[in-house]
């Protein structure tokens, strides 16, 4: 039976509960403590003063006694018939809703308490349970750890301090380390691990024959200096921050300016940016290092995850759906920040206090407050530092001129007096009205054309022939492609009047700009007056369309036709057009005459009012301002114009998609129009947008003892200061999470398993560290020795632990099957990107170009509406796509099937550790996918070009792909295959060898 929601109805109990008496065998206060604990664990989330579902609150004695919508919770006369008991007991109790029933002993306690008179000490208030206990390994402060003293016999094995920790644990478990792997294995391991590509046969030979004692360390240094190192390790980071090149959700539109963040990550790894700087830049680089390229591009971290386009661009913040979308958007920012840098799952506290970790809803929403001013949007900047400098110089000059201008204008105001004040305030009022009337019903929009000279028209039917004297056209406003005002306004056009709907005869030309380009007027009304004319139809014909992105359109915000009484006779007229995209509410024919447009005022009179006021203003200035001031003002204006022209001539500004204060139009306005003031953030009861609780300011989680989790910021702080506060909190010396988190991540990628194997969750639901002392030692060492990730790599890969063979041993396998104590190296499967990059490299096709927009291994169809990403139409011989996989354009809604089958990271979720699966579909993909089939053919051509005999070619194939010489038997088998069926078939086999796809 599905429980119906029995409602508690409101009634007041007047009988004093104490009268009911009770059993004598339990201390009433102690009994209440036990019952109170049950109620606060199981009931209070839905039945508190903040959120009294069914009208019932259990926060206080009074609230409890007053009951809920369906009556009193307690029957004073017959306590065992109380509604409370009825609700929670029986074979399928109604409460708690959506959760397991109370345990029998819990129900029994409540029964006993009721029977004993339901004593509730007056001062006891029940609160939702929260965890405050910091007694958990990851929340304990980092304290110096001594490196264990090894057994004398083990001392020789130790190469770096981590070995001392590892062998100490091994000995505890009666295990011992494996022997060092051979050089062929080591170079293969190091190359795939550090740069993600196979070594050349020459490099392998050189390493094997390098007799220097530090040949290994030299190889490590060499690989860490390779630019490919950053490409390899950036990919790990991008997994965690769920970076993608499309928005995801409905439509999954392209995000063409996300890639500069990806490049920032690659550069950061290659330049070995100190970790605290890396953290700070990603959260607040734009504030801490303003006008630096890294500082701006790094904040692509905040915007890296998915974004609900419809929920933002089509649903305004005033609507509930709009608020839900924005709440979930901030949730993604908070979750990503805290999972990535602090390995804490704060997201559990969106709907209720975290059940295991010391994170309450208040803390969670205080983190939302940190990001409350932000949206995900493009930000303009100059990627070229020289241009950035020049622009900054010109801007300085511009502000000088502008302040000079302000002084001159002040002088003008003094000279022109009260009259000018009156005119200007009237104009200002009109402007304010204009703001108010900005709406999302943009106007009429034609179909999209690939040529500019296609002729389009739209016309209105005034219903009957009538006299008009003036036409006003107003451009539309749409931020698509950052066009804004004047969106789709034709470059050449005419306006005709006729009484014939077809305009085949009786046509009067009212406006004609068909033989000259007109400057886009933005949304300034274009007014055309003429002698009165009797007409029923008015047609606007565009003869040269407006540019949209790489295509052309005709759009118009509003058409007004005024008669002699300045009445707009076109209001709500019937509109027809040659064609129209009809995408309500923004675009539809009817919007052309709906009275809503940029600058619309209550009436067309508002328009003429503006024209009139401007005329009055210029007359006034002419007669009351002295000629010298006028001259200076003119000079200033000319200089300003010149300067603005210069600024215009600078290369167009670049764009990067970041977490930023957005200034937009339509539904997606952002907080720019409010000067970047953060949105008010409230605790949301049960995460419901309709149930706001207390307001919260910016803060974090209370895990550093003696330190306030609320950020202490001045009352007039900017939004950026909130992000700086969070970034600085994360990189605090005494933050127990940050340093443990990063060293554990790096460890995971080298060893295939983290010291803590839940890298995003160091909380009570996560895994325990296998080597807690080692983790702390590494964290402290890393924090205090320059926070160099490259040094950390050296510490790990130069160790004896890392250099072990990966072979299994039956006896050790029985003690530690999953190799948690590292008695051998883990054999690892190559990741999707490494397979693809290596196949390209081995086939001789890999292109070395770094950075820039992602390559697209799909054909993009219908990008103007809902883009279709057609992977199956992509040509695998397209060299533009033969770059490293980190530069792949990452689509969220449809992952690249080849990569997805090989377990690549899903850009819609943070992937702290990849799954590795083995499926029949993978086998099919590796054998049959067009990329693999093509590359096997290219590999064969490469081999055939280099060597004469098929057996030599097979030897080369082995050296290139698996870094060893084949056995005579292997040569024979593959040579035979090549001779009978072609070398490409042999290459296809090599690409499917386990020996290629796994690193020992």
């Amino acid at each position, binding site marked *: 039976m*599905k429980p119906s929601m029995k409602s508690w109805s409101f009634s007041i109990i007047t009988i004093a509960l104490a009268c009911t008496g009770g059993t004598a065998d339990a201390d009433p206060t102690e009994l209440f403590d036990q019952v109170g604990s049950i109620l606060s664990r199981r009931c209070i989330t839905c039945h508190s003063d903040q959120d009294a579902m069914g009208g019932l609150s259990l926060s206080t004695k009074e609230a409890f006694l007053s009951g809920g919508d369906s009556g009193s919770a307690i029957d004073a006369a017959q306590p065992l018939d109380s509604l409370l008991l009825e609700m929670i007991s029986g074979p399928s109790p109604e409460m708690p809703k959506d959760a397991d029933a109370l345990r029998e002993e819990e129900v029994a306690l409540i029964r006993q308490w009721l029977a004993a008179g339901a004593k509730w000490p007056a001062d006891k208030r029940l609160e939702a349970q929260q965890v405050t206990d910091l007694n958990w390994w990851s929340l304990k402060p980092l304290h110096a750890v001594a490196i264990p003293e090894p057994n004398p016999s083990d001392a020789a094995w130790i190469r770096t301090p981590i070995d001392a920790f590892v062998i100490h644990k091994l000995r505890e478990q009666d295990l011992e380390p494996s022997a060092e792997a051979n050089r062929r294995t080591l170079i293969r391991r190091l190359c795939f691990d550090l740069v993600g590509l196979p070594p050349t046969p020459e490099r392998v030979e050189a390493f094997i024959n390098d007799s220097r004692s530090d040949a290994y360390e030299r190889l490590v240094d060499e690989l860490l200096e390779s630019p490919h190192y950053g490409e390899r390790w950036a990919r790990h980071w991008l997994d965690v921050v769920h970076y993608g090149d499309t928005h995801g959700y409905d439509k999954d539109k392209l995000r063409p300016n996300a890639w500069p963040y990806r490049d920032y990550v690659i550069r950061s790894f290659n330049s070995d940016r100190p970790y605290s700087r890396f953290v700070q830049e990603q959260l607040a680089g734009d504030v801490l290092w303003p006008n630096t390229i890294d500082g701006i591009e790094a904040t692509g971290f905040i915007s890296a995850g998915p974004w609900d386009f419809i*929920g933002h661009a089509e649903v305004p913040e005033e609507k509930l759906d709009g608020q839900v979308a924005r709440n979930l958007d901030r949730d993604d920012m908070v979750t990503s920040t805290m999972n990535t840098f602090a390995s804490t799952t704060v997201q559990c506290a969106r709907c209720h206090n975290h059940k295991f970790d010391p994170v309450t809803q208040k803390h969670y929403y205080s983190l939302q407050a940190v990001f409350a001013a932000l949206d995900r949007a493009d930000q303009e900047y100059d990627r070229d530092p020289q241009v950035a400098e020049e622009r900054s110089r010109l801007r300085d000059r511009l502000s000088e001129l502008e302040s000079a201008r302000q002084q001159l204008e002040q002088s003008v105001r003094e000279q022109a007096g009260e009259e000018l004040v009156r005119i200007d305030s009237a104009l200002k009022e009109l402007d304010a009205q204009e703001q108010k009337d900005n709406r999302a019903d943009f106007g009429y929009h034609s179909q999209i054309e690939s040529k500019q000279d296609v002729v389009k028209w739209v016309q209105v039917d005034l219903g009957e022939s009538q006299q008009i004297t003036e036409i006003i056209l107003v451009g539309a406003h749409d931020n698509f492609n950052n066009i804004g005002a004047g969106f789709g306004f034709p470059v050449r056009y005419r306006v005709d009047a006729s009484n014939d709907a077809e305009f085949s005869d009786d046509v009067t030309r009212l406006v004609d700009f068909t033989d000259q380009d007109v400057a886009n007027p933005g949304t300034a009304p274009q007014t055309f007056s003429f002698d009165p004319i009797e007409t029923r139809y008015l047609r606007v014909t565009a003869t040269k369309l407006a540019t949209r992105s790489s295509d052309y359109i005709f759009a118009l915000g509003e058409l007004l036709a005024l008669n002699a009484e300045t009445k707009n006779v076109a209001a709500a007229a019937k509109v027809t057009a040659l064609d129209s995209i009809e995408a309500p*509410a923004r675009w539809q024919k009817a919007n052309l005459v709906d009275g809503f447009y940029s600058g619309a005022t209550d009436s067309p009179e508002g328009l003429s009012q503006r024209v009139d006021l401007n005329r009055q203003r210029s007359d006034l200035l002419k007669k009351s301002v002295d000629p010298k001031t006028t001259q200076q003002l003119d000079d200033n204006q000319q200089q300003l114009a010149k300067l603005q022209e210069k600024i215009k001539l600078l290369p167009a500004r670049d764009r990067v998609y970041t977490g930023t204060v957005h200034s937009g139009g339509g539904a997606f306005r952002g907080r720019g129009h409010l000067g970047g003031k953060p949105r008010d953030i409230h605790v949301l009861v049960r995460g419901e947008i309709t149930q706001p609780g207390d307001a919260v300011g910016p803060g974090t989680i209370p895990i550093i003892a003696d330190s306030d989790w609320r950020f202490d910021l001045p009352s007039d702080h900017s939004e950026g200061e909130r992000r700086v506060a969070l970034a600085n909190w994360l990189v605090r010396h005494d933050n127990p999470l940050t340093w443990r988190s990063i060293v554990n991540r790096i460890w995971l990628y080298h060893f295939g398993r983290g010291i803590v194997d839940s890298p995003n969750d160091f909380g009570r639901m996560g895994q325990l560290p296998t080597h807690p002392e080692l983790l702390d030692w590494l964290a402290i060492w890393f924090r205090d020795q320059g926070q160099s990730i490259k040094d950390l790599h050296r510490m790990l890969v130069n160790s004896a632990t890392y250099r072990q063979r990966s072979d299994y041993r039956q006896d050790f396998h029985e003690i530690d099957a999953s190799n948690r104590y590292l008695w051998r190296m883990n054999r690892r499967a190559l990741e999707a990107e490494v397979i693809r990059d290596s196949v390209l490299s081995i086939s001789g096709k890999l292109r070395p170009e770094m950075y820039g927009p992602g390559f697209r291994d799909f054909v993009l169809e219908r990008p103007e509406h809902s883009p279709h990403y057609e992977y199956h139409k992509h040509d695998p011989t397209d060299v533009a796509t033969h770059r490293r996989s980190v530069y792949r354009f990452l689509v969220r809604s449809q*992952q690249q099937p080849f990569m997805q089958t090989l377990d690549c990271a899903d850009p819609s979720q943070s992937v702290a550790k990849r799954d590795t699966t083995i499926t029949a579909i993978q086998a099919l993909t590796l054998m049959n996918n067009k990329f693999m089939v093509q590359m096997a053919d290219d590999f064969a051509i490469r081999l055939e070009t280099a060597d004469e005999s098929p057996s030599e070619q097979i030897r080369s194939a082995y050296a290139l792909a698996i870094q060893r010489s084949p056995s005579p038997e292997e040569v024979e*088998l593959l040579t035979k295959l090549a001779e*009978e069926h072609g070398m490409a078939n042999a290459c296809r086999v090599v690409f499917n060898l386990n020996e290629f796809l796994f690193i020992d």
Partner: protein
Amino acid sequence: MASDIMKKKTVSPSAQDRITRRRILHHAAHGFGGLALTAMLSSESRTKAAETGSGAKLTVLHRPAKAKRVVQLFMSGAASHLDTFDYKPFLEKNNGKESDFGEPIEAFQNGLGPWLKSPWKFRPYGESGKYLSDIVAPLGECVDDMAFVHSVVGKTGVHSQATYLQATGFQRPGFPGMGNWISYALGSMNENLPSFVVMPDRRGFGSNGTKNWSSAFLPAQHQGTLIRPGTDQPIRDLFAAKNDYVTDASEASARGILKQLNEQHAAERQFDTRLEARIRSYELAARMQLAAPDALDLSREPKHILKMYGLDHGRDTFDEKINEVEETDYFGRKCLTARRLLERGVRFVQIWSGNDNSFPRRNWDSHENIERDHGPLALGMSRGAAALIKDLKQRGMLDDTIVLWTTEFGRLPSSQGGTGRDHNPFVFTNWLAGGGIKGGTTYGPSDQWGYKPLDRSNPTQVYDIHATILDLLGIDHTQLTVRHDGIDRRLTDVHGHVVEELKS
């Protein structure tokens, strides 16, 4: 956040061990990557509870199962309940009158015109006398096998979030769909075919694309496998891409050599089950190459069956304008393919009707004109769906196959722009048939307008539908959990009640 787990105060050491073990099993690190597949392979000789298949998470079902397969029909774009299955005489009487919902209402596109009756007539069918509109009349013959739920409510009027909610139980990306969970729980009944198959609309994917059936944090073999019947390449990469060097002979020879070389490699690296699993995966792939084309070959179906699914029209081209013959062909083809796959042991089939938003409309999002889009789409859908139900029934398969019809939300009883309807996440319809479902049922009526459930305090949510389906499959929805980033996740989040009224 799973409440059952949340109740535990701390994780005991034994729980830690279990988690560790589960992690290893599922995340397949350190020498156990092949477990999923090795388990699947070893199942060939294994004795196990008969209900669950190979690779199943559950070795023993939580309760006796009434069904073992599911077909989900998903109408993308939000199909109108008011023009199909939820008859509202009120709208016929008050058509054109100013709408009044008795409370302020926030429409998605501000489309709140007057009351709008359905352009189609409703007539009663079957012994249950269920009223259906003329565009779903083909289902009239099946109503006594079907159970309608008219009180389904969503949480948002945004297509994307709403589609996620209906497909995965969560409003955000990053969660497995029902098919993924069921594949994970029950495994495969035919190792030569995938356990979860998805047939998208030919015009493209719905909202969220492939994310609606991606395995998210479940192992990748539970990902939905795309099959596109009637196209050049119904299953991606089943055979070698176009080339001039692979022949049947080369293929046989290459496979043999690959096996030999990989076996040699594995022999030198004992105890690593992944290596063996990869070798077997190629054998499985080869078997799939034989089984899949056979399953998809509709030419083996007799004429009367093709006719039943509306595939006897004899045309190879269709009008450019949206039309019912074409819609019937595409939907019917997918339904017939579904039956053939189910027969061969595929566990879960998901069929999509309608793609994402585009112009001209080819989905159920009829803001402008209900008649234009819903007419052909619904006729095509109902012919295919009716044929599938009848066909399963005549083969005795309806008894243990659940058919679920759903959409992301409904449409408003008021008009938008005269002939269209805006979004209605406040109430819409699902129907189920087969596998333990009580036929001839109408459960949870909507109010007189079809605006909200009649009993507003007792709505049906997607969690309840999911819980009921899992229940019929023998799974307790609160027990099927996977820990991900510190949270024990389940299909029904912390919600869900089995709707007993729907069970036979």
